[in-house]
């Protein structure tokens, strides 16, 4: 099995949203590659956060979620036509984080920005800010070295008026050196609020082109969908040409872009929706109870004893967004839908034994039709040129009988 994970995207963000009733645990993984002293995030959060509500997580948990839920390629081998076995294989496809870099309580006060709390959690220096005026907040952030883009003030204003706080984090280089991490670990926050949403507007201010976001929602009841944008299932379960085995990542990227175009960039795509207890085929083993707890799945302890079934439903959403097409923050709802869905593409290998029997001739004919069908499907899914696809498949015109039906009757 081959899988297409999020590493395929350069500017992708990944967010895990654990949600039940009004409790949310948000894990933000970023792919920040630069100098850690340049790193800073500003995230609007619905409530004040105490130190206990903030945690620094383990990136491997997100990676595992990604691997487990990514679109997959499955291989089947045709049985001997003159007289069924199955194997599978996979490939896979990150959260918007506004990067800024810098601090001073007195200055904050005079500006009308309140530093409600300051914590050091792991390698991060964290501030919880509230403000009365967006321009003051913008000034403060700038003075403290957060490179906030022009225009952010207008977006900040809306959040301030609805009572949101601002979670601001920077890397404490000494702490980081002491802890010995060479990369930035994901930040986790836990809060209780009826707002089941993800603020994406701040990240879009001044962004260069569209951004890529993956949301892994872990819930108790069922699938998660957006309520203010369409949630569309990615095309799935198609037979595709065998050569994609080596090019699955490219296929997934092209196919996703084509789907985004077709939906006029106005939809959120569902890539995976499955009960966490099993998978078929598994792109990676399901997450252990410990891993789930690390991600913030807080209801596990209440449930059955360890080793029992984990009542967790995973939804993987993927979107490409920009200001023009996604004017509003994402708002979600948990549905009662427990229908399993995965983005899965099928490779069918031809039987390569002796097919000289009567049924064999029929098999060879259907095989040629099948290959042609796969080429058409692939061209349609990705927007690639059909002639190019056929060339890569090694389909020559001779291999397809293009004679008219009547030309074939009397040969």
């Amino acid at each position, binding site marked *: 099995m081959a899988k297409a994970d999020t590493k395929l995207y350069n500017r992708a963000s990944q967010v895990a949203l654990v949600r039940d009733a009004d409790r949310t645990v948000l894990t933000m993984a970023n792919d920040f590659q630069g100098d850690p002293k340049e790193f800073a995030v500003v995230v609007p959060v619905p409530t004040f956060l105490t130190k206990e509500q903030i945690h620094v997580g383990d990136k491997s948990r997100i990676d595992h979620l990604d691997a487990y839920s990514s679109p997959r390629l499955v291989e089947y081998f045709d049985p001997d036509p003159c007289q069924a076995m199955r194997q599978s294989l996979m490939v896979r496809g990150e959260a918007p984080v506004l990067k800024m870099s810098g601090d001073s309580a007195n200055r904050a006060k005079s500006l009308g920005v309140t530093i409600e709390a300051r914590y050091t959690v792991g390698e991060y220096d964290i501030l919880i800010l509230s403000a009365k005026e967006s321009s003051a907040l913008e000034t403060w952030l700038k003075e403290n070295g957060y490179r906030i883009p022009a225009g952010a003030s207008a977006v900040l204003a809306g959040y301030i008026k609805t009572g949101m706080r601002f979670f601001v984090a920077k890397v404490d280089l000494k702490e980081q050196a002491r802890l010995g991490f060479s990369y930035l670990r994901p930040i986790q926050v836990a809060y209780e609020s009826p707002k089941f949403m993800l603020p994406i507007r701040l990240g879009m201010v001044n962004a260069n082109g569209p951004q890529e976001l993956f949301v892994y929602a872990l819930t108790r009841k069922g699938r998660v*969908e957006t309520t203010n944008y369409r949630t569309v299932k990615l095309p799935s379960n198609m037979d595709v040409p065998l050569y994609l085995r080596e090019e699955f990542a490219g296929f997934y990227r092209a196919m996703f872009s084509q789907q985004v175009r077709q939906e006029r960039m106005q939809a959120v795509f569902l890539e995976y929706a499955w009960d966490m207890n099993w998978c078929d085929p598994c792109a990676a083993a399901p997450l252990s109870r410990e891993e789930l707890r690390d991600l913030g799945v807080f209801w596990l302890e209440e449930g059955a004893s360890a080793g029992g079934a984990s009542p967790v439903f995973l939804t993987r959403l993927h979107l490409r967004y920009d200001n023009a097409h996604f004017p509003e923050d994402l708002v979600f*709802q948990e549905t*009662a839908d427990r229908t399993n869905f995965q983005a899965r593409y099928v490779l069918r290998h031809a039987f390569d034994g002796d097919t000289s029997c009567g049924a064999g001739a029929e098999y060879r004919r259907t095989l040629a039709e099948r290959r042609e069908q796969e080429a058409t499907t692939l061209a349609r899914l990705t927007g690639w040129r059909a002639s190019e696809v056929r060339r890569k498949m090694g389909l020559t015109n001779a291999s397809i009988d293009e004679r008219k039906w009547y030309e074939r009757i009397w040969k």
Partner: protein
Amino acid sequence: MNTLRKLFSRDPRLYQIATLAGLLLYGMIWLGFDITPLQAALLIGAALATQFALTRLFRLPSFDPRSPTISALSLCLLLRTNSHGIAAAAAFVTIASKFLLRWNGKHLFNPTNFGIVAAMLATGSVWVSPGQWGNAAFLAFLFACAGGLVVHRAARSDVTFAFLASYLFLIFARSMNLGEPLAIPLHRLESGALLLFSFFMISDPKTTPDSRAGRILFGALVATGAAFIQFRLFRTNGPIWSLALFSLLVPVIDLALPGRRYAWNVTRLLPKGDSHASLGNLDPDPPLRPSRARGPRVLRVLRGQGRYEAL
């Protein structure tokens, strides 16, 4: 075409059935609604069967499939569940509410609204997906809904307009207050679910207040409730919950602002003779009768061919 127009203007409910069926097909084929043909058939079948059984039970003069078809199609458009049993039960509750939950000869709740709310509250296995309409089909949808108003010159479009105007005002006022760009309130309003609600659900002449003043008040209240649920409580499907809640207030509004009771185009519906005299309040489509309008008559309810039924 002319025949079609005649047909629709003779009975606006046919226009409604055609519009809803068209929307359903569009949703199932192009928008990938989470409803299978089997479940749609089940919802429609269960609604018709319930209507038939209760027509017999309550000894109504004739079985009329139009009203339950409209309710069932609306359920198909809105109600989502993985369970066929719950779908059938919701269809039953929807139709039964017309017969059982009555006050002073009117249904208390819009049947579809009641069916959905009851199923959501009772089971936890039912959901409504307001985002699944997307914005692409918005204009076509708007025309279809507005077309309905033109075709049947609906006597009670005032409630639709009152709701839409109030909701629009609240959405824009909130966005302006928050300093949000115009794209945000516009995006919120470009919603198929909102149109469906405004033109097919809240407009139900059988459940809205009798007087025009009452209906305008009702529309404004439902809009305020919907905005409150959406933007203060942060829950989805504000309009649906709000309508169910304020439907309970309709008897009070009718007392405070009395008007003439809505009725079908009676001459066509009623068999000869005075069969309705013995039916009393059990007839889900009661004939025109001067309601206890004490004040001046606020509105001539039946204007032209004003037969109209909402979801």
